[in-house]
């Protein structure tokens, strides 16, 4: 589904990613961990097509398409979804109006008919209920005045509505209490399916208690320095990142 080969990325002439290689197959859940500043969020944003990041080398294939050649909205239409670390507020735009526009824009791009208002309302009600949200939420301005937990829940609602092929969660767990964490992980677990993949970027292991990943990768100084299964995350929780850093630096010194 997703093939990242030797991906190198700079921001304002500073190199952040120094050659990432990663393969994600349909249905897999990959966790990307690493200390602060290792390039985790950069990877998530580059895949979604954020402009400030300059790809200096490497390729990214997504379902046989050259992802790096596509605009942000085209990537969304192709099935890439980014759950933001800091969802932005857009005053005066109702959440309902935004969700309708997003759903219909994606449907149109895929050559499907737009949902009529009744179908739309039914879908929105069904999914808000699924996420244990109150419908009054839909009438509020998009993310404006939302608490941290509400913003993240809104991200999960969007994910459930847009049914992406690849969902990337960028530190979705940061700043969440245990209840909100449960909501995020329940949403992901409900959406896990054989043809949907996830990349979960996180600093802490605790989210992975609820979302069990197939693979765990450790990013350090712009490279994946270690990969393993869920046990690697537990080991990191136990021992911190220092041993990884030491290993990586030793490897570099050779």
């Amino acid at each position, binding site marked *: 589904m997703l093939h990242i080969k030797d991906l190198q990325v700079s921001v304002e002439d500073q190199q952040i990613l120094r050659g990432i290689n990663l393969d994600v197959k349909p249905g897999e859940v990959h966790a990307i961990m690493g200390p602060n500043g290792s390039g985790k969020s950069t990877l998530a944003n580059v895949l*979604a*097509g*954020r*402009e*400030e990041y300059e790809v200096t080398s490497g390729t990214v294939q997504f379902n046989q398409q050259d992802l790096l050649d596509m*605009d*942000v*909205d085209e*990537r*969304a*239409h192709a099935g890439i*979804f*980014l759950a*933001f670390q800091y*969802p*932005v507020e*857009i*005053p*005066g*735009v109702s959440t309902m*109006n*935004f969700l309708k*526009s*997003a759903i219909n*824009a*994606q449907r149109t*791009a895929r050559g499907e008919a737009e949902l009529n208002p009744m179908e739309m309302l039914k879908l929105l009600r069904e999914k808000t209920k699924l996420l244990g949200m109150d419908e009054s939420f839909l009438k509020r*301005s*998009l993310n404006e005045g939302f608490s941290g937990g509400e913003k993240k829940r809104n991200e999960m609602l*969007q994910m459930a509505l*847009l049914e992406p092929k690849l969902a990337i969660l960028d530190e979705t767990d940061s700043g969440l209490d245990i209840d909100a964490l449960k909501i995020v992980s329940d949403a992901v677990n409900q959406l896990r399916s054989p043809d949907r993949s996830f990349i979960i970027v996180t600093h802490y292991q605790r989210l992975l208690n609820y979302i069990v990943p197939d693979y765990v990768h450790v990013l350090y100084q712009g490279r994946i320095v270690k990969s393993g299964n869920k046990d690697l995350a537990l080991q990191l929780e136990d021992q911190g990142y220092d041993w990884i850093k030491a290993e990586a630096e030793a490897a570099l010194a050779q």
Partner: protein
Amino acid sequence: MSDSMQTLEQHTQSDYKYGFSSEIDTETLPKGLNEDVVRQISAKKNEPPFLTEWRLEAFRKWQEMTEPHWPKVDYPAIDYQDIIYYAAPRKKPVLNSLDEADPELVRTFERLGIPLEEQKILAGVAVDAVLDSVSVKTTYKEKLAELGIIFCSFSEAVQDHPDLVKKYLGSVVPNHDNYFAALNAAVFSDGSFVYIPKGVRCPMELSTYFRINTANTGQFERTLIIAEEGSYVSYLEGCTAPMRDENQLHAAVVELIALDHAEIKYSTVQNWYPGDKEGKGGIYNFVTKRGLCAGAYSKISWTQVETGSSITWKYPSCILRGDYSIGEFYSVAVTNNFQQADTGTKMTHIGKNTRSTIISKGISAGRSNNSYRGLVKVGRKADNAHNFSQCDSLLMGDRCGAHTFPYLEIENNSARVEHEATTSKIGEDQLFYLQQRGLSEEDAINMIVNGYCKEVFNELPMEFAVEAQKLLAISLEGSVG
């Protein structure tokens, strides 16, 4: 070059192409302004002596005044002796069908959702008198007449209702109020007149069905609206279709009078030629708009969406003289390329328990400058006056400017005055967020801008609001990235 600019340019060329200025016109006075010209204008319009005198008085005062230079706008000096002050209405070139009109212009009409019949009239297509729009117009005129509502051109009002004109003309904006208002008083050509009798609620938005009539009004337009005790009227001015005019200087005056318990809602959508990409050739719009809440519990509400003109100098204001009267100002002003806007309002609290609300939303793009200038004045006797002002500026790109000049003059300690102001940039973050969810860049910008303007659009009559949203989208095309 953005589509809207192309449309406007082509529209400009199309006027030229069809020989707009080649008509021989015998009803035109020579260039320049003097007492004789003022007298001749009055004579050509067969005006009663009081009006001729009023014009002359305005002209004499105007001669002693100087053009104001305090607005934050910049333009070359205007030669007032190089302007023709009277020309009989010119005939638009007549086409046989819309197929002959400029396709770009027709495309813009379609995008704005302007009904086909109106498109034809705006494009200068000959319209058969039995068409629906015309009969609708007649039906409504009859209905208004039954209720005693007068809605006619200013010239007609001067002939048919001279007493009303004499009583109210200049009662809100005196003929020497300011430089441009004095000029208008001396030479105004025509405009609209509305009179709503006591207790009558006007059953329709005035000029929704008539706005085509106002599409070709002149350079010095004058509007007078009188709402008698307990009456209500909603008046719509302007048109979302791109308007090209060979007159560069426009100096209109609008006077509103609301008596006890009366309410006037005045909505404007202005989309005059803003000039080319270098800002050349656009219209200078120097307007004086003022409403007098003369009676207790009266209410005047101004709503404006300003996207056109190269220079806008405009401060729709309210004088709150009646106790418990209410003044409101809702504004969206968009400037792009080299446009300059200095706009805002004045709320003058005189009566007791008067309230005013100001919501101003400026949007600057390109290399334009957009200023909000507002005065809230609370007089000595205006006990318990309350004002709320909110002035927001949205910047698109980094070569444009937004400025806010709020003035307060408070002479009564019981006044409550609240002011909020924000300046924000249309965020890369916001655009990225919306595009990541599948919206195109254009749709994403529209969604952000419409959200920003929502409080103002909510005040517009429904169909006007829909057109205004589309107009905003076209005005801002290509302004990010």
